[in-house]
């Protein structure tokens, strides 16, 4: 063994020892003295799709949908639509559908204009369209995430915290709908594990239910609350540690109904 390799080994060993000493083997999550960071980062659809694709190639093209978006004065609905459209973009990237990604780029800009943040999003929207033209899918994925984060940041800056929550919720909903639809077509126990998100759904539900009433005006927002409650019971493994095919079908139907309602309301 040469000197560099020996030195490297020493460093690795020293590091392991240090870590073993410093990290408690177990923490009591009910300890009232724990300081939990009061902010969550919602996973983006491609983060979940990446895991599913490791089980084998999936047919994402069937999840690409060219919906007409009719805007109204309800900014809460627009924020949900923004999240949904970004998730549609991630699905289109997964399907490597250039035209659908270009459409996402255009719709993202239109929705951002309606939310009053177009100038912050414009360069990302253009990069999405350009990246789609070149088939540069990693770049398009980055720009979609940047677009989403830019809008969230801008909303926080403008103190529109309720819209931040709704953009995040819309993005999660769109990704979950596509994931459940793919799993419904091609069910596997391993794949359905990705729908095991009870804590995340609870957090999204709680965040939604604590939004001020003015941010939840309209019939569709009643449906959001009911669907999240329903999903909380569905999106958890059963006693045998799996999410059954029946539950996957129900998750797929519930999320699709809700997404349709948001687009059509």
């Amino acid at each position, binding site marked *: 063994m040469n000197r560099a390799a020996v030195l*490297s080994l020493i*460093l*690795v060993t*020293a*590091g*392991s020892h*240090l*870590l*073993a000493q*410093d*990290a*408690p*083997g*177990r*923490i*009591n*999550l009910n300890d009232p003295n*724990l*300081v*939990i*960071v*009061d*902010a*969550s*980062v*919602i*996973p*983006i659809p*491609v*983060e*979940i799709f*990446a*895991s599913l694709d*490791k*089980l084998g190639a999936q047919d994402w093209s069937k999840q690409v949908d060219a919906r007409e978006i009719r805007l109204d004065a309800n900014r809460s609905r627009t924020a949900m639509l923004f999240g949904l459209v970004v998730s549609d973009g991630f699905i289109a990237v997964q399907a490597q559908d250039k035209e659908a990604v270009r459409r996402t780029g255009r719709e993202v800009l239109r929705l951002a204009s309606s939310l009053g943040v177009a100038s912050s999003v414009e360069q990302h929207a253009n990069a999405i369209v350009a990246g789609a033209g070149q088939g540069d899918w*990693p770049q398009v*994925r*980055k720009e979609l*995430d*940047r677009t*989403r*984060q*830019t809008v*969230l*940041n*801008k909303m*926080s*800056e403008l*103190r529109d915290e309720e819209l931040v929550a709704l953009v995040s919720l819309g993005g999660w909903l769109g990704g979950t709908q596509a994931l459940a639809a793919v799993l419904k077509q091609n069910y596997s126990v391993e794949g359905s*594990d*990705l729908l*095991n*998100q009870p*804590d*995340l759904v609870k*957090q999204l539900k709680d965040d939604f239910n604590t939004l001020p009433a003015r941010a939840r005006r309209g019939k569709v927002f009643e449906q959001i609350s009911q669907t999240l409650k329903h999903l909380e019971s569905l999106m958890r493994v059963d006693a045998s540690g799996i999410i059954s095919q029946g539950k996957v079908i129900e998750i797929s139907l519930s999320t699709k109904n809700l997404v349709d309602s948001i687009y059509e309301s």
Partner: protein
Amino acid sequence: MRADRVPFLAGICLAGVCVISPFSFAQDKPIEPAETVEVSPELDDLKLLVQQSALPYLTGSKPFVLREASWSGEIEPGKARLIQVQLFKRNDYHFWLAVPDRKSSLNLNLYNGKGELVEAKSVRYETSNVTSLVASPEETGLYYLRLSMQSSVEEPQRWAVIYAYR
């Protein structure tokens, strides 16, 4: 648990990675709401530092994909913070933590939903105010990233955490 040591690359910035608003940082509970919207040069520098640490892992044959989202806050010496994060089986995750003071000594560990320490690979850098962790969760679910700072410095430190997946 395994540990690696990699050179810290200073002064490198890929297009787009460095140009991110300070507002993309989520804040922990002890911070007053006003701090979430103030432009802080220190926070910008800190975010740059933590992003620079991530750069070597975002290229190559099995690159990580960096998320734009991040967390930040302030931590006292000898104290810990927990970040809740939903992780997915079969993915690898890389988390980076940085604080400004180069004398700081940091720990970053991952726990599952039962509070049990998860096996992970810890990466050490040339400066001890940056550390990172690579984990491959065995189950899909909610995890807790525990960050702590040893009492090697006296002053509370601002911190920033980013993550990537593959």
